């Protein structure tokens, strides 16, 4: 059953974008990937407004103490099967902010992560490539 669901989602991953304390750099690059020039929507990828509609949670930022609860709650609200993609260096490891008193050094401290797209920030092309990798991963029937 899970493989059927995964198969059906290959062509239309719906993303929920969540800023977990980033500097906006990754966020505008995610949007740049979705707008006219690169138009990720041609792969069926689109942003949705509610966690209940989303397949993929796209997190940017190192998770601040104040956002920790919100990240966990949002993840819990998403229907199965769900995936988490982290965009940016600080979301992956803490990046330049590593060691700060108000951050958790990475999204993996809050929720399980499926895919990292490193870069500070990654180019929109890299964001699209990351999504393509995720689709590949679904193909593998993970």
């Amino acid at each position, binding site marked *: 059953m899970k493989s059927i669901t995964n198969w059906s989602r290959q062509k239309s991953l719906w993303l*929920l*974008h*969540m*800023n*977990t*304390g*980033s*500097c*906006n*750099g*990754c*966020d*505008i*690059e995610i*949007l*740049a990937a979705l*707008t*006219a*020039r690169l138009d990720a929507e041609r792969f069926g990828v689109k*942003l*949705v*407004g*509610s966690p209940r509609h989303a397949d993929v949670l796209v997190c940017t*930022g*190192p998770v*601040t103490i*104040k*956002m920790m609860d*919100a990240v966990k709650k*949002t993840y819990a609200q998403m229907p199965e099967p769900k995936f988490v993609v982290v965009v940016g260096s*600080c979301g992956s490891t803490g*990046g*330049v*902010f590593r*060691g*700060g*008193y*108000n*951050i958790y050094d990475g999204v993996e401290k809050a929720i399980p992560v499926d895919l990292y797209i490193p870069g*500070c*920030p990654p*180019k929109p092309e890299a964001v699209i490539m990351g999504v393509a990798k995720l689709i590949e991963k679904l193909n593998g029937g993970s």
Partner: protein
Amino acid sequence: MSKRDYTEFNLGPQHPALKEPETFRVVVEGERIVKAEAILGHTHRGIEKVAEQRDYNKALYLAERICGICSFAHNANFARAVEFVADVEVPERAQYLRVLVAELERLHSHMLWLGVLAHEIGFDTFYFLVWNDRELVMDALETLTGNRVNYGMNDIGGVRADLTPDIKGLLMRKLDELGPRLEKIKEIALKNKTVISRTKGVGVISNELARKTCVTGPTARSSGINWDLRRDQPYFAYGDLDFDVKVSTDGDVYSKITLRIEELFESMRIIQQVLEHLPEGRIKTDVRGKLDGSAVSRIEAPRGENFHYVDFRNSKEPYRMKVRAPTYANVVSSVEVLVGHYISDIPVIVAANDPCFSCTDRTLVIDRDTERYQILTAKELRKLSIETTKEEIM
């Protein structure tokens, strides 16, 4: 007006489409807002404290990552403050190159804002159009500095990348292409019925309120405060360049659109001048060793006045670093202005100040009387906004 008419709800902290998480707690009576309150701090990363453990060369890159949209403003401002402490002269060519990147950043930031505002009023065609044209500016920035967002352009004492004739030619081509497109954007933004009906007379910040809440940047200039650091306290090479500071007196969202579009053309003018009159010479003076002393630097970021303070006590690491970004000043005014407007105007008014956040997701409506919970998503809130647009133009 009895107590039972009031409804209190939270906006945020998460938004599906854009930017930083912030919460607005809003009390409404029916559809009208009677009280609004901003809750900040969701993206507090403790940068000022982290900077105290990094030497000034590393803290420079940390300062860049305070904000990904006005990254150059923070980066250059920090570099300038450290240069004051080190008491070095920055070469003239570097000063001009800093102006070049700062104005390219203003172009991309204002266009980004215009797209976001168009998105908030449900005019997505315009949003995509503006963001498509914005890519030209991003290309120019990438060619010049090597990066699209965090440019890494500045160094303490100068800049890291020079403008070669090849890059100059490419930049000129991009800007020639951008000119007519900006004209088109201007025409749509100023004449389109959808834009006018949703923004004219909405979110008026009076001159008095603007002064009371100490707003800065385009928000202040649209409320009739004639203040621009580029002209009034020239830094980098702005003193040598010829440009106008645009001021509007209406204070509504529409005047912020017109003002920012005028500023786009002024930025284009400044960039042309820089490309024509770029002086020859070195691009960097070396700064080495420990520093002692403190300094304040202020520059005009795309959103307003940006303040950096650094204090060195015979060390390479700052003893104290303090930053004040323009949104912090502007958010107070948008909270005051929300009162009296409809819920569907919240995205427009909050986005109008070009804040570094725009959060309208997971709206929690609590009816005080029945204690009934209702969760509105940003999608629904935006739908409400779009419906209002439709009603207005019908």
